[in-house]
């Protein structure tokens, strides 16, 4: 007679650091040699780097130039304006994090950025007297937003509007509204720079997203005029390096609009170039996602009576975008770093600000210069933001993976 076999627990794998080391690093004589040699090389390099960072390096110039790194020539007495924008952004992000709750993507991102602001606050207290009380205010605003979001979940409904309003207000606050010398006086965009400029240019990814989606959909259109326009746009833009488009934008845009080159701010020209360049790549990423959605999906939607537009927006696009999140985040990270190319059209972004620090007279007085110190500092900041984006995207992928096998 048939008797089912009772399930048994799986054998417990032998664990522990020794087992792990033996299995992964010392599994054969060759691997043992390899482990020892690479380990020695890595340890030696790290030791040298650590020695430099903690003993040989002169960080004084980095700390002394925090303002230049952060905003370049933005007037020192108006620093409260970008910091107020930062406080508002952290307040809103904190609100999202509070509504999302501990462990959500927004909360993790929020706390990482709060950590960054906290470090900056300490740096400001010690090295940057003029804003030593303003930086901690950004921190406080963030927590205030977080607590508000925790205690009042209905904030979620207001947040999208608040973001939009703050976006507009932020631009007005940054550029100023009144002539003369008051608190809200106009700061010409040629004085914007440093990390502030890097972030402003990076927001080009926001308009490039809908543009890219539109181009991708247009490329699949049945109307030849739309289809070939989109193909031509995508292929031409992708056919030349960003650095060339930055040049072209700074020379061609005034010509196309028939205005004097000086009446169009350089930042605006660079912004347009970056946005359109990013949109072309976005379009190809999205197109890849559109192709990954099986035909049966749109057939089922059409058979149910949904219109072509509804089918695209409700069925095809959500699945297509989900499939290409890693590619889109990869593109965002790339764009974040590529903004450093704007030095070629005379803008001073974060990277270029570092460059300028290294050639200051005070820097040249330091024996051996401060190039390595400055570029290490710049690299760490870039890394922090790029890595945070990567972490957030992985969490997003995991969350959206719900139910999709």
């Amino acid at each position, binding site marked *: 007679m048939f008797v089912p076999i009772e399930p048994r627990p799986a054998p417990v794998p032998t664990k522990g650091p020794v087992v792990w080391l033996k299995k992964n690093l010392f599994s054969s004589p060759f691997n043992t040699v390899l482990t020892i040699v690479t380990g020695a090389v890595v340890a030696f390099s790290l030791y040298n780097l650590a020695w430099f960072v903690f003993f040989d390096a002169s960080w004084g110039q980095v700390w002394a130039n925090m303002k230049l790194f952060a905003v370049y020539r933005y007037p020192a007495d108006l620093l409260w304006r970008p910091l107020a924008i930062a406080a508002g952004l952290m307040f809103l992000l904190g609100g999202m994090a509070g509504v999302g709750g501990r462990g959500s993507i927004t909360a993790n991102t929020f706390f990482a950025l709060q950590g960054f602001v906290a470090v900056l606050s300490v740096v400001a207290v010690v090295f940057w007297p003029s804003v030593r009380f303003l930086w901690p205010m950004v921190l406080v605003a963030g927590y205030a937003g977080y607590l508000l979001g925790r205690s009042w979940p209905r904030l979620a409904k207001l947040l999208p509007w608040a973001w939009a309003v703050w976006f507009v207000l932020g631009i007005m606050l940054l550029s100023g509204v009144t002539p003369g010398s008051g608190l809200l006086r106009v700061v010409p965009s040629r004085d914007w720079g440093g990390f502030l400029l890097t972030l402003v240019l990076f927001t080009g990814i926001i308009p490039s997203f809908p543009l890219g989606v539109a181009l991708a959909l247009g490329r699949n259109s049945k109307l030849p005029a739309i289809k070939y326009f989109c193909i031509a746009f995508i292929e031409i833009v992708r056919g030349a390096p960003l650095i060339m488009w930055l040049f072209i934008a700074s020379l061609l845009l005034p010509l196309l609009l028939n205005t004097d080159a000086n009446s169009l701010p350089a930042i605006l020209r660079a912004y347009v170039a970056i946005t359109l360049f990013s949109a072309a790549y976005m379009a190809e990423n999205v197109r890849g996602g559109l192709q990954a959605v099986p035909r049966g999906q749109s057939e*089922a939607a059409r058979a149910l009576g949904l219109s072509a537009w509804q089918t695209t927006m*409700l069925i095809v696009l959500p699945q297509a975008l989900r499939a290409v999140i890693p590619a889109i985040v990869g593109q965002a990270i790339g764009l974040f770093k590529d903004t450093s190319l704007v030095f070629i059209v005379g803008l001073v972004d974060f990277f270029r600000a570092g460059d300028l620090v290294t050639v200051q007279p005070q820097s040249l007085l330091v024996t051996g210069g401060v190039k390595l110190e400055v570029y290490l500092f710049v690299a760490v900041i870039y890394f922090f933001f790029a890595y945070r984006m990567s972490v957030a995207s992985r969490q997003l992928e995991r969350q959206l993976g719900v139910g999709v096998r």
Partner: protein
Amino acid sequence: MTEATTGSIVRADAPPGGEKIIEIEGLNKWFGDFHVLRDIYMSVNKGEVVVVIGPSGSGKSTLIRCINRLEEHQEGRIVVDGVELTDDVRAIDLVRRETGMVFQQFNLFPHLTVLENITLAPIRVRKMKKSEAEEQAMYFLTKVGIPEQARKYPGQLSGGQQQRVAIARSLTMGPKVMLFDEPTSALDPEVIGEVLDVMVNLAKEGMTMIVVTHEMGFAREVGDRVVFMDAGQIVEVGTPEHFFQAPREQRTRAFLSKIL
């Protein structure tokens, strides 16, 4: 102009006296150079269950996909519930709202829950209130026997459950005709029965159905007519009993000997 027809045309006309809901006259369709549907004449009465059988590549799926315009036809007329299918988008939308379709691969929307899958079209197309649509969705989910799965995603369901959700999804639009395109072909043998049960109940309630399937047991139980297709044409038409007992054409006998 195409060349004149040389072979014989077998008409699959609905029995007289009924109220015709689908009429297909002289339907021809090509995929590129390939003549996939050749001179199809077919009509279906309200409440009839027509089973379409035939070897793969015979055009049976293409035929029912023409009825809700998932495929365009080049020649002939297709009239569904008084509306002729042309390039007119409004006519197409009208017909699609009156016909439900169930696919071999289910084609549930994987990013939406079962409930969202079912309420999507009523809310977006029929402009139904969400609460009302959900109530209706639960009614149909109960009808297909899986109300407890409403909050899950399609990927968490078995094939048989997914196909039953797909049927419920079509039914919420209140279709006058249901088209089934090999609804059990992608299912494990163990769960085919649960899907067929749902379809049998639907047939017994008087739904007009065109079913492309090889499930002859289903045809025998509720089928009014069986249409056998091969190489893009209708070869033989008759009652299920006719096909079981005395198929006329050699081609039909050869096919049936393989699937029975």
